């Protein structure tokens, strides 16, 4: 049984169909990439999975339909996300930010999450004191503190340079390979996605236009036209 199954998920905003009947499954212990040009509906997809956007279609977590669950309940069930604009709590220190999310039976979920992202030194700082890159890592650490079964990352590598991005990819890979969590990764950094993902889904104008392992997606002419040719 897949960890997450999406079945004809559709999200409409007024006249815009931001996600149009998209279906795919994420297997436990894998790293799934989700790419597409600006406005393709990637963030909306994460919103739908986490219960922050009203959608039709079905969403199942380990076989159980969670489509009618409110956002907080999905989070408690292990679906935890980061935000494209981070949304760190500016009035709380980094440690308090993580404590707000912390859950699970680990001895010290906060410390180990900070450790995993190599940002333990930020614990007593406020988010405003951090550089954008560091704040992004902190936002991933914050989600990790919740001991997610499924971690949804919305453009976590934006603003990282090539070297940082590679190191970040390695960290994600380690999380998945050591069985810590399963990841759905949204990013515009094509190299990062191609290098670390097991499978990739491609969205364009809310529709799924391709999917498969990186090599297949890279070779897909549809993808080249819609995405790689467009923005990369």
């Amino acid at each position: 049984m897949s960890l997450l199954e999406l079945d004809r998920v559709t999200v409409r905003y007024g006249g815009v169909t931001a996600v149009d009947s998209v279906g795919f499954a994420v297997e436990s212990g894998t790293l799934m990439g989700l790419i597409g040009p600006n406005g393709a509906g990637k963030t909306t997809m994460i919103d739908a999975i986490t219960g922050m956007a009203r959608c039709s279609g079905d969403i199942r977590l380990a076989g159980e339909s969670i489509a009618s669950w409110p956002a907080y309940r999905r989070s408690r069930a292990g679906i935890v996300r980061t935000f494209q604009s981070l949304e760190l709590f500016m009035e709380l220190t980094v440690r308090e930010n993580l404590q707000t999310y912390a859950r699970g039976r680990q001895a010290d979920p906060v410390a180990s999450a900070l450790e995993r992202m190599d940002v333990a030194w930020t614990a007593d700082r406020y988010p405003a004191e951090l550089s954008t890159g560091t704040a992004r890592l902190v936002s991933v650490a914050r989600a990790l503190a919740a001991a997610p079964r499924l971690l949804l990352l919305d453009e976590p590598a934006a603003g990282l340079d090539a070297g940082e991005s590679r190191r970040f990819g390695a960290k994600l890979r380690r999380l998945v390979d050591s069985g810590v969590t399963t990841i759905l990764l949204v990013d515009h950094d094509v190299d990062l996605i191609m290098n670390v993902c097991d499978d990739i889904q491609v969205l364009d104008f809310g529709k799924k236009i391709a999917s498969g392992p990186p090599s297949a997606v890279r070779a897909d002419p549809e993808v080249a036209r819609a995405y790689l040719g467009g923005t990369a």
Partner: protein
Amino acid sequence: MAVLQFALLGLGLGGAYALLALGLVTIYRGTGVLNFSQGAVAMICAYVFFALRDGLRLSTAGAALLAAAFAVVLGLAFYLLVMRQLRNSPVLARIIATLALLLLLQGLAMLLFDVQTRTPVSVVPATPVDLLGIAIPMDRLILAGVAVVLAVALSLVSRRTRIGLAVRAISDSEKGASLSGLSPVLIGALTWAVGFVLAAVAGVMLSPIAGLDAKALTLLVVPVFAAALIARFTSFGVAVAAGLGLGMVESALQLVTDAEGAWYTWLWTGPGRSQALPALVVIIAMIFSGRLLPARGEVVRGRLPISPPPRYRVAGPIIALAAGLAFIFSVRPSWLSAGVVTLAGVMIALSAVLVTGFIGQISLAQVAFAGTGGMLTALLSSAGLPFLLVLPLSGLVAALLGLLAGLPSLRVRGPSLALVTLSAAYICQVAVFSDGRLLGGQGYNRVASPALFGLELGGTGFAVVTLVIVIVTGSLVAALRVSTFGRRALAVRENEAAAAAAGIDIKRFKLAAFTLSAFVAGVGGSLLGYQANVFAFERFTIFESLHVIAMAYIGGIGMVSGALFAGLGASGGLFSQLLATWGADSYQLVIAGGALLLAVQLHPDGMAATLHTIRERRGRRSSPAPAAAPPDDGKDRSAPAEPSVPVK
């Protein structure tokens, strides 16, 4: 027939509602501000007018001109000196600013004018005219007529003139207005001036009908909000129709008298039922159509006053206990009772810290919760229940009301929630606390003297017990701030989406916070009852509610120390006592309002917060090296704030 007669007589009140609502709508369209001081402006202008006409014997026309000029100057000054400066400030600060004006005007009226309620001679003929076979004084018809004419005029100006179009554009966005070539400042100034003049007309024309009464006129703002809400803060025509309709219904409702009937007739018979109706309209309208208030382009995502982790969680309570005991055993009785009122005030302010400071829900109903506690205390203590049982029971019943009052917070936020809670407090004031039938005593009920284990406490003993209760509560609130609850509270108040992503059930959390805070306020009200040996409804009015939130805001509403400050400033508390010894107690409201206006601009986070940051800076300077440094792997990851986190 009588119904029709009363309804038609209500045209006067309705006309005043309509005029005030037109002003509210104008100001909202021009600057996006919900002006809670609209009734107070009508009140002060009425006092100015009648002082000029009846005191200085000016002609009606002369007095009217001067009163209108006064309204214009007041509107311009308040907009340019206060609201314009606050245009990018948190919602709470902007609401507080209009509340500050309300308190200031109320205080000025008390200070400068003879505020014995009187009924001045009408400015227009009041001879009865025959309408549908019913004799109606002409002044009421004229007032309603003026409202209708001005609504038509405003609609025409709004549709046909360049200024009107600019105001319409600005309600969509500030940028929209600059397209028309008129500056937003000009438009803002104009709308505030017009809004205040409309209020002045309402005040001057209504006073001869309903009486010149400082508090009653100020409280007009509640029914007026009902009319403006029905008009969705946009349509002048609907605002006038709603105002007139509410006035007529309210007047007709007075016919429903206190006939002995089945128990449930209690709901609609008794004091204040007709006044409560518009407030009920506000609450229901807000709950059922959540966003009745159209969002304006300019709205900023409000930052709330800071709520830093408390510093002196051990030393603070110990010092407070020592200082409190020293005070209790060394002062005269008048100071002792002022001290206990201050302690009860701290308690009520702590409840505001919980719900407004920590969770960011602007509640103007905290004193109503306290009043509920006070009322229960009168009931239970006279039934012979012991002090130690009455206190928590009073808190619990208040907590139930808090749970109820928290429900709207699931649907409305910010200024809308302030309005809903204000309306709830208004209903408690006019229809519950003053309803003698509940306790059998016209709103005044004896509270038995507190006794502990069979021993009468006496003044000093009760003060000590109160001190201990307040210090324990304060310590618990401080502990809450650094607990999981506190972190979640700050998360919810800052960013509901990220809080939901953290697995926080926001609805339950808000309800829990309202319940807990109402419990604390209820215990505070109970203490007030024991202190005075009586439940007196006038200690639990809206003005007290506003006073508490004002003082807590000045002190720092996110901090326990802010509540301490609020208690000192509570009416009847130590600050009042100090003013009284100087013979200056009539200045209290003016000082509170003025200080609040200054505080909103100078210390938007509150005084306690200002002190806190000063200490923080000192502390930073004296501490050696930065506590944490990034691991040295050749990359500068500690790059300081420069490219800082984008905040949506």
